[in-house]
Structures are given as structure tokens and as C-alpha cells.
């Protein structure tokens, strides 16, 4: 046995070991530098281009804040700002309470079929935002089957925008609130019950304060989503202009880049504000719950459960219904006069020169973005979290990785136009290619993926890298053999998130597509403009079906990963 641990000959040690050190440090440094360079190129420089463009006139001369002054003094532009604030404010005021009650029913009551209600509320996530607009037009528009419900009022304008935004934003608010309501200490409830506290008092002294950070967070998220959304006002807004449609008109319609940049920066304000509020809230939220808290398990209570079941059913119907109608409408010959079914609307070549081409482009974009984006995001998060060299560079990369969260897609898209379309930019050849769409989409959805990756990496034992170093195994081997396999579920999460969003996004890419790279979501906008609403609904339905299919595949794959493929997870 004693020959097991024979000291290595002294002369051998430095020779054997020295090259390892050089290469490992160099590789780590090169990778972190490369990560920083990529993030600067896809996030920092486009934003910088947007800022500097807003301070120039149309000839590229520096004019200070002159553009902002002329924006504020042009009534038509200024009214869009007020319109945006109105629409976002009202939508938020409707969505947050509804989503709170819905989330409350899912977390704190004993209603049946919680999974189905959860899934129903998530439906809008899988569709382009403008599908909710199309759905409402089918119901309440000029040819709507329920037009009488409008009592003469017009859907096209603030009413339609708000209704569609409520549909579109509901799942985002609900997700945040479900999480917030999950974080509660059951012992507090038990203590209150033991003291004979009334239900209303429990609600406003324990439940509401416990979830208040979630409510704040949801409020900001919904407000930002609405104010930066482009698809819905485009489809259902009529003459009612908002910031997002203004930005599009200034840049694409009038080629007034500086004014487009000004609108972009105004759109940045609520998003940046929401970002910082969210960070503060996150910090407070995690401090609130001690490690010894016991999760609250609701007990059946007939009257409350029945009431909530009624409410939840109504909301679920109100969400799924319109999407179902739009899906149905896409098969209808001539809404609402000839309701016989046809596949004709799916022959997109009648209204779109490229036929099904945009859908194929979208699939390609989503696949490429999922593969490239997930690799970049996860590797980047690993370098930032686990490689303990070059702390300053890593902090810089971390900052850039968190930045896209505060940048609405529309604003990022504008930045890309200004940066990659600039005459001096050697990367200008990318403009109008699929590559720039992929790059932009990766940047657009970077932060959520990054946070998912970080969360999963932080759960790993911090000493894996130390052990590997002591065994003289370079970090990339440990990444390949240990870290990535353990984080596979998180990697799948990121890939599916990026894929679904790449499929449904309109806002950033609307500025960047070229003749050969038109995407399905953009084709929908064009079909709608051309009055081919059934085809627009058809294309949107195809997108939605694809996104849902991918999500179901993900669920199946996850079961496989946790079940058969990774048996080490079970005792």
C-alpha cells in the first residue's frame, strides 16, 4: 500500500506543472476578455449610438438637447407621451389586482385544477403580443361578433389597446405574484389563527405586506411592458398614437433618426426605473424569509374556494377565449358573414410574397438564437461566477449582462439601427442579414437567461473548482464534465425561453429585418396592414402553436432529464 503515495520526483514537478498554469490563466483571461468584447459590441455600443444620436441633428452635427426641446414643443409628439402614460397606467391598474387575486387563488386556496388554470393564464406568453389585438378585433371590432357589447364605442383606440395589453401582460404579472405569494411563512398564519384573528385582518396584516414587494415589482414590469409594446398599438390603436408607434414612424416612416432616438430614450426611462426598483425589491424580498420559515399550506374552506374558483374560471375564460376565437377566425372564410371553415387563409402566398418564408425565417432565427444565445449566456455566466481570475473584468461583464433587462426591445432595436447602419461601422455588412437579427435577439433576452444561469451555478458547491485545481484538472474540463451536466435543466430553461421569445418578438427586429429575412411576427404586422386579418391570425396561430409545442417538448425533456438520463439525482 505504501507505494501508493510516492512523492513525485522533485525535478519533475515544475516541468510537469508550469505549462498548465500559463495556459489555464491565459485561456481564462482570453475568454473573459472575449465575453466583455462581445457584450460591448452587442449591448453597450448600440446603446451608446442611441444616446449620441439623440444629441445630433439629421446631418450628424452635435446639437445638445435641441431634439428633446423640439420633442416637448411638438404637440403631436408630446400627446403620444401622455397617451402612453394613460394606457400604461390604466392597464397596470387593471392587471395587477386581477393577477394578484388569480395568484392568490393558485397559492392560498384549495381550488381544483390549479395546473390547468396556471397554464391558461400563461397562454399569452406563447403568442406575439399583437395576437391579443387581433383576437379583440374578431370579437369587438367593426366586424366583431360581439360588437354590440361596445355600445357604439370604438374598439380602435385606447379602449382596444388597454384591453389587449391587459391580456398580454396578465401572465407576466401573475408569474411575479405567484412567486411572491409562495414566499410566506406558514407559522405566521398559524400564530394569527391561534389568536383568533379575522380573515380580513390576516389578509392585510400578513398576506399583503408579505407580497408587497411582488406587487411593486409587478406594477413596474406591467407598466414598462405596456409603454414599450409596439405590436398591439400598431394593430388596434387606429389614429391613437403612442410612444412606441411614434418611434417606428419617425425612424421607418420619416427617416428622422434623431427624433426616433429621443423617443427611444424616453422609453428607456420607465424601464430603467423599473430595473432599479426591481433590484431593491429583490434584495428586500430575500431578506424577508428566514431559512427556518415553513411554507404555508392552505386548508380547504368551502365558501372562499368556491368564490375564487368562480373568479379564476372567469379570468381563464377571458384569456383563453379571445385566443381561441382568433384561432377559429383564422380558419373562417369570411368573418363574420360566412363562418364556414377553410385552410385558404393559411396559403400565405396570397398576401405575402414569400408565402411561408417568414415562418421558416422565424424558426431559423429562434433555433439559432437558442443555440448560440444559450451557449454564450451559460458560458458567460460560468466565467463570471466560477472563474476567480480578473475580478474587474468579470464585474464589468456582469454589469453589461444585467443591462438588457433595463432596455426595451424597441430601444435596443433603434440602437442597432444607429450603430450597425452607421457608414463608418465595418460591421455594417451585417445590417439586414439574419445574423444581426440573431445577435439582436440574443442581446434582447440576455439578462433573464443570465440570471437563470447564475442562480443555477450558485447552487453548486463553491469548491468544485478548488478541487479541480488541486487535481490539476483545468477549469474547462470541469465545466464540460461536471458543471454543464448538473446545470442541464437550467440550460434547457434558457434555451426554451430564448426560443419562444425569439419566435414572438416584434419590437426590436422590426427595424432590422431585410428583404430576405422577414420574420413571421413582422409578416403578421404587414398582413394586418394589408387588411388580410385572417391570414395574420393564421400566422400568429402557427407561431403560437410552435411555441407551445416547444414548451411541451421542454416539459417532456425535463422529465426525462430528471428521470432516466440523470439517475444521480435520485437516492
Amino acid at each position, binding site marked *: 500500500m505504501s507505494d*501508493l503515495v510516492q512523492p513525485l520526483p522533485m525535478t519533475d514537478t515544475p516541468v510537469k506543472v508550469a505549462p498548465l498554469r500559463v495556459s489555464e490563466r491565459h485561456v481564462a483571461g482570453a475568454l473573459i476578455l472575449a465575453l466583455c468584447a462581445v457584450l460591448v459590441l452587442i449591448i453597450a455600443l448600440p446603446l451608446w449610438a442611441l444616446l449620441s444620436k439623440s444629441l445630433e441633428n439629421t446631418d450628424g452635427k452635435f446639437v445638445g438637447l435641441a431634439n428633446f426641446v423640439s420633442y416637448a414643443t411638438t404637440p403631436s409628439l408630446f400627446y403620444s407621451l401622455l397617451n402612453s402614460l394613460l394606457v400604461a397606467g390604466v392597464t397596470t391598474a387593471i392587471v395587477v389586482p386581477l393577477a394578484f387575486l388569480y395568484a392568490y387563488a393558485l397559492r392560498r386556496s384549495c381550488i381544483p385544477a390549479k395546473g390547468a388554470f396556471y397554464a391558461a393564464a400563461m397562454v399569452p406568453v406563447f403568442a406575439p403580443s399583437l395576437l391579443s389585438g387581433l383576437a379583440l378585433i374578431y370579437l369587438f371590432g367593426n366586424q366583431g361578433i360581439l360588437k354590440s357589447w361596445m355600445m357604439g364605442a370604438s374598439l380602435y383606440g385606447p379602449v382596444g389597446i388597454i384591453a389587449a395589453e391587459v391580456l398580454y401582460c396578465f401572465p407576466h404579472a401573475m408569474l411575479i405574484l405567484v412567486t411572491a405569494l409562495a414566499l410566506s411563512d406558514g407559522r405566521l398564519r398559524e400564530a394569527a389563527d391561534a389568536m383568533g384573528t379575522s380573515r380580513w385582518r390576516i389578509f392585510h396584516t400578513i398576506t399583503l405586506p408579505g407580497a408587497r414587494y411582488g406587487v411593486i415589482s409587478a406594477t413596474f414590469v406591467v407598466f414598462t411592458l405596456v409603454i414599450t409594446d409596439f405590436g398591439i398599438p400598431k394593430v388596434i390603436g387606429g389614429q391613437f398614437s403612442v410612444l412606441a408607434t411614434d418611434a417606428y414612424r419617425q425612424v421607418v416612416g420619416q427617416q428622422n433618426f434623431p427624433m426616433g432616438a429621443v423617443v427611444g430614450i424616453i422609453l428607456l426611462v420607465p424601464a430603467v426605473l423599473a430595473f432599479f426598483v426591481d433590484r431593491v425589491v429583490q434584495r428586500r424580498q430575500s431578506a424577508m424569509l428566514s431559512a427556518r420559515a415553513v411554507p404555508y399550506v392552505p386548508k380547504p374552506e368551502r365558501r372562499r374556494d368556491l368564490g375564487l374558483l368562480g373568479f379564476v374560471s372567469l379570468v381563464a375564460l377571458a384569456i383563453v377565449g379571445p385566443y381561441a376565437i382568433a384561432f377559429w377566425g383564422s380558419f373562417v372564410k369570411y368573418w363574420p358573414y360566412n363562418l364556414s371553415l377553410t385552410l385558404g387563409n393559411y396559403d400565405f402566398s396570397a398576401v405575402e410574397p414569400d408565402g411561408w418564408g417568414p415562418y421558416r425565417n422565424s424558426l431559423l432565427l429562434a433555433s439559432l438564437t437558442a443555440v448560440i444565445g444559450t451557449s454564450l449566456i451559460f458560458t458567460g455566466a460560468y466565467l463570471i461566477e466560477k472563474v476567480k481570475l480578473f475580478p474587474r473584468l468579470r464585474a464589468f461583464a456582469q454589469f453589461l449582462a444585467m443591462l438588457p433587462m433595463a432596455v426595451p426591445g424597441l430601444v435596443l432595436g433603434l440602437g442597432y439601427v444607429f450603430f450597425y447602419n452607421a457608414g463608418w461601422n465595418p460591421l455594417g455588412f451585417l445590417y439586414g442579414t439574419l445574423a444581426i437579427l440573431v445577435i439582436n435577439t440574443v442581446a434582447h433576452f440576455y439578462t433573464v437567461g443570465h440570471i437563470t444561469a447564475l442562480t443555477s451555478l450558485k447552487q453548486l458547491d463553491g*469548491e468544485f473548482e*478548488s478541487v479541480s485545481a*488541486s487535481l*490539476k484538472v*483545468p477549469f474547462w474540463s470541469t465545466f464540460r464534465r461536471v458543471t454543464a*451536466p448538473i446545470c442541464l435543466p437550467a440550460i434547457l430553461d434558457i434555451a426554451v425561453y430564448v426560443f419562444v421569445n425569439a419566435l414572438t418578438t416584434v419590437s426590436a427586429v422590426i427595424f432590422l429585418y431585410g428583404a430576405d429575412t422577414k420574420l413571421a411576427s413582422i409578416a403578421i404586422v404587414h398582413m394586418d396592414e394589408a387588411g388580410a386579418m385572417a391570414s395574420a391570425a393564421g400566422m400568429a396561430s402557427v407561431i403560437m402553436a410552435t411555441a407551445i409545442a416547444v414548451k411541451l417538448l421542454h416539459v417532456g425533456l425535463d422529465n426525462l432529464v430528471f428521470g432516466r438520463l440523470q439517475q444521480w439525482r435520485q437516492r
Partner: protein
Amino acid sequence: MSTTTTPFLSVRNLAKNFGAFRALHDIDLDIHRGEFVCFLGPSGCGKTTLLRAVAGLDLQDSGTIHMGGRDVSHASPSERDFGIVFQSYALFPNLTVADNVGYGLVNRRRTRDEIAKRVNELLTLVGLPEQGRKYPVQLSGGQQQRVALARALATAPELLLLDEPLSALDAKVRERLRGEMRSLQQRLGVTTIMVTHDQEEALAMADRIVVMRDGAVEQVGSPEEIYRRPATPFVADFVGHMTFMDAIVTGPGKVRVDELDLVVANAAPFAAGTPVRLAMRPEEVRTRGIGAETPNRFEATIGDLAFLGSYCRAHLEPTGSRATRIAADFSSNAMRDLGIVPGQVRTVAFPPEALHVFAGEGR
């Protein structure tokens, strides 16, 4: 280059700060080939920081570390030659036990058969043959600990570092593994450093103990030296139990505690009239074989008695003394033979060589 007289590991003037906090300062330490050394101290004393500096996982701010005659002060962990076991074990959960143990062997241009053979040897060595195909989650804590040990030893490192390797285990398992690890270390002769806050563990396992406090070395010595001749009141108090008494030096080798005049063997360099602290271990208080010639003999009342299994701890109140209470341990045998009960007045004695004299308060 290295001979038996030059130390295998030598640390000089090592210092590290975390902001304003001095985690380590003025650390000088030599460790010889084949030694088992324990870094012992309360949490926050810098023992883990020192271990991580030796490993190169957290570099020191200043000072040098030489390993096997080579200056490794600024070397990365992979340039140093050590195996390490962490408190959490850090076993790779997605790899089998065999793959975990063979993790460091794969890169070293060995054939698959060679690796398999070596892994088997190691698993046999730590007493886990036939367990190679299981995953870590299927093993008990003690088994996981042994796998981590086998993995650390797989590449035949010259230095084995153990960071609180036993503290996540149950008391019984801990005690058994303590003995197993020590005998394994002696068989392999691998130089070993273990960090622990458990003084019993350090006493049972180490060749030498480095007692640390507030980022500095308080005392270095064999377990017996540390226990029998603590250099400072801190060491005396931290390792084992100790009763402290305020006293005044009355002459060469003589001190007075309250009304008691005592003789001490370790004539410390204190002038008469100097206030000192006198310390004594509870098990050193004698109750048997006391004759007229026995020094430091006095009457005391047995105060409360605490039953602690194999022995009882009593608090003695010397007759005529106001405040002094002295802890004394009596074996179960002594309890039975002498019929010790609370409230009894007995003659007891302090052996002069068991009394430690430290500088008094304010010095």
C-alpha cells in the same frame, strides 16, 4: 534539494487582510515531511484562511510559502502539489464514485485500465471496495467523506489538506473516522494539514498542533505539550478545561490565592508581589494518598456535582476562602471508593507541577 532537516513546507511572515479585518498576520510556520499538523482555533481565528493560502486558493497579501524547497508564494493551486478534502466534500454529484476518485487521473496520459486499477486500490484503501459504481447521493456521510479522501490521494500528492473534514458527521462516525484517517496517514506517510475547531480531534490525531487566535499563531507543539504546558491562558482555556484563579506571588515558587499559600513547580520569572493568574486542570485535583508531607493540601467543601458519564465534575470551595471555586473531576471509581457527596468537607491537594502561572490581569 530537500533533506530530512529542511522543512517540507515553510511559511514566513504571512499576512492577509479582508478590508480592515486582519485575517492573518506574522505567520511563521515549518512543517516537516510526513507530519500530521492540525490548525486549531475558534471560528474566525484564521485557520481556514491559512490553509487556503497554503493551497493557493486565496493568495496572501504578503509573505512567502515554500513547498518542497520551491517558492510557491504566488503559484496557482494547480502549480502546487496537494490534495484537498473540504467540509462539504465537494464530490461531483453527476459522476460515479469511481469517476470521482479517478477525476484527477484522466488528464495524466494513463490508460483506462491503469486508472481503473488505481481507483480500485484507492477505494480499497479507504475501505469502500465494490462501491465504485454508486453515485455520491447514494452513500452515507461517512462514506462520502472517504470518497473525497480517496480522490484527494489519487494523484499521490505530497501534501494533504483537510478542511474540517469530519465536522459534518455524527459524533460516533466522526470518532471512528478519526482513527481510520490517522492510521491511513501514518501508513502513507503523506504530510497532512487539518483544520479543525474541535480540540479533542486535534489532540487525538495530530503530531503537532498549531493553536491560532485572531489571525496569529498562539502556540505550536505536540498534543501533550499543548495540553500539559499551554503557553498562554488562551491555549490553556481553549484546549481542555482549566480553572483560573487570581493569585499573588509571595516568593520564589510561592503564590497565594485568597487565604491559601501554594507551592508551584514551574518557578515563573515573577517578582514577589506581582499579581498572576493561576491555572489548573480539573482532573489534576488530588483526593487520594494525601499525607502530612503532601504540599498544597487544604480542606474544601464539595459544592454541586455534575454527572458526566465516566466521571463527575465537582466544584470545590476551599474552607475559609470567600470566592474561589475550583473545578475538580473525579472518576466513577473515586466517587464510589471515597463516597463523595455534595456538602462533604474533604482534604484535597494541588500537585505543584500541575499549577500553571500566567501573567496577571493588566499585564
